[in-house]
């Protein structure tokens, strides 16, 4: 009799504790970590997304941004990764670039263990040449003794993508570091460097509006409507680079997020990133919406790690 009562009581306690976990999320303000400064792409699209996350999360919770720039993204990622896994701290990442410290053994995080909630968009990159550069075509670039490129370092997808693309195409390149994309693009316009490689949304002003730079190819499977005469890198014979030079903006929570809270987050994230009003805003800002589900997110992380492991020696050579 006593044993039966004890079992019933245990089941009841377990059931109630699970119900409590479900009902207590969200129970306070949610912190959304951004490992960059305010006003950049990651901050801008996160700010755009937050009202829609609030709309689809139970109880319309308050979500605040915590910008944590520095340390080549590692400060912000660690803030998210080491937070209590209760659903009240999430963070945006830059993939595949954020897998680099892990591949090089410099990270205090394992992206395979993070709890992936969704993805915001797929960023298409464009290579553009300075009007003052001697080189105008891919063949000329391949035959050049040295091509200069304006980058902000290997921690950025732009910098990493430039290194990998140049290596793959056999272009001898010297990397001129700049403090930001604006400075690097200005260096291209002035003719201080031959090559810049940035997202289409970042370069649009210089290649479509003012035509200060010449777009030479885009890293996508199909051409971009606003620059229809510019070929894709696949058309130029390097289809594999479409998956190498790209950037995704996924959002993750710390490892060990309870299943019920993970499901709540993933459901809200999916609905928010598929909201027609949100997608309209993304497209108006020259972004390409790309909502992702659990399996796609897991595959994306695995692919990023494998890709960078494949290019590890090349990356190490350029870091020296």
């Amino acid at each position, binding site marked *: 009799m006593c044993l039966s009562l004890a079992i019933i009581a245990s089941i009841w306690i377990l059931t109630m504790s699970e119900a409590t976990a479900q009902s207590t999320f969200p129970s*306070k*303000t949610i*912190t959304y970590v951004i490992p960059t*400064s*305010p*006003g*950049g792409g990651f901050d801008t699209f996160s*700010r755009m997304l*937050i*009202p829609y996350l609030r709309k689809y999360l139970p109880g319309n919770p*308050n979500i*605040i*941004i*915590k*910008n*944590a*720039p*520095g340390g080549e993204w590692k400060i912000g990622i660690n803030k998210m990764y080491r937070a209590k896994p209760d659903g009240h701290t999430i963070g945006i990442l830059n993939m595949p670039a954020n897998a680099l410290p892990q591949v090089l053994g410099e990270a205090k995080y394992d992206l395979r263990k993070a709890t992936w909630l969704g993805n915001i968009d797929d960023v298409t990159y464009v290579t553009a040449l300075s009007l003052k550069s001697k080189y105008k075509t891919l063949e000329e670039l391949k035959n050049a003794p040295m091509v200069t490129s304006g980058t902000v370092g290997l921690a950025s997808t732009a910098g990493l993508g430039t290194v990998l693309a140049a290596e793959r195409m056999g272009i001898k390149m010297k990397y001129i570091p700049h403090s930001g994309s604006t400075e690097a693009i200005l260096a291209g316009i002035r003719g201080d460097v031959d090559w810049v490689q940035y997202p289409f949304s970042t370069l649009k002003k210089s290649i479509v509006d003012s035509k200060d730079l010449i777009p030479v190819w885009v890293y996508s499977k199909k051409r971009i409507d606003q620059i229809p005469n510019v070929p894709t890198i696949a058309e130029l014979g390097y289809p594999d680079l479409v998956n190498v030079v790209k950037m995704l903006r996924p959002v993750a929570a710390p490892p060990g997020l309870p299943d019920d809270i993970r499901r709540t987050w993933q459901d809200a994230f999916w609905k928010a990133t598929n909201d027609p009003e949100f997608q309209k805003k993304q497209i108006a800002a020259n972004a390409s919406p790309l909502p992702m589900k659990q399996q796609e997110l897991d595959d994306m992380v695995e692919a990023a790690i494998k890709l960078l492991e494949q290019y590890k020696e090349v990356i190490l050579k350029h870091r020296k």
Partner: protein
Amino acid sequence: MKRILTIWLTASLALLVCAQLNIIESRAEGPKVEVVSPVKMDKKAETTIKGQGFQPGQEVNLLFTAKDGIESDIGYALDPAPKADQSGNWSTTWKCGRFIARKMVLEGKSYKIAVTDGDYNPIAHTFVLFSK
């Protein structure tokens, strides 16, 4: 009996009024925050934010609401991190130029700065004006 009840009710009412007055007084003397404003619309702008009436040793977060209505923790741009001294006062410098450079605030408009505890529960707030 009726007299006792009247006295008891009067005393209770007096106590209630006193308690309310105390609450109002304590609120008036509660934590306060102020900011040096207006702030020039300059890409390298910075301003001073000061608090008083906080618990000695209390660490606080500062949230800034930009023109999109989203609140962000500006801790990364504060020097030093705001922490009340033994008298409950603190002062910090906020490098706010990034919000200006990226057009996240408009000239001639005021924006909210909130002081919160570690869980982002509000404690006090003020407004900062951006001007030429």
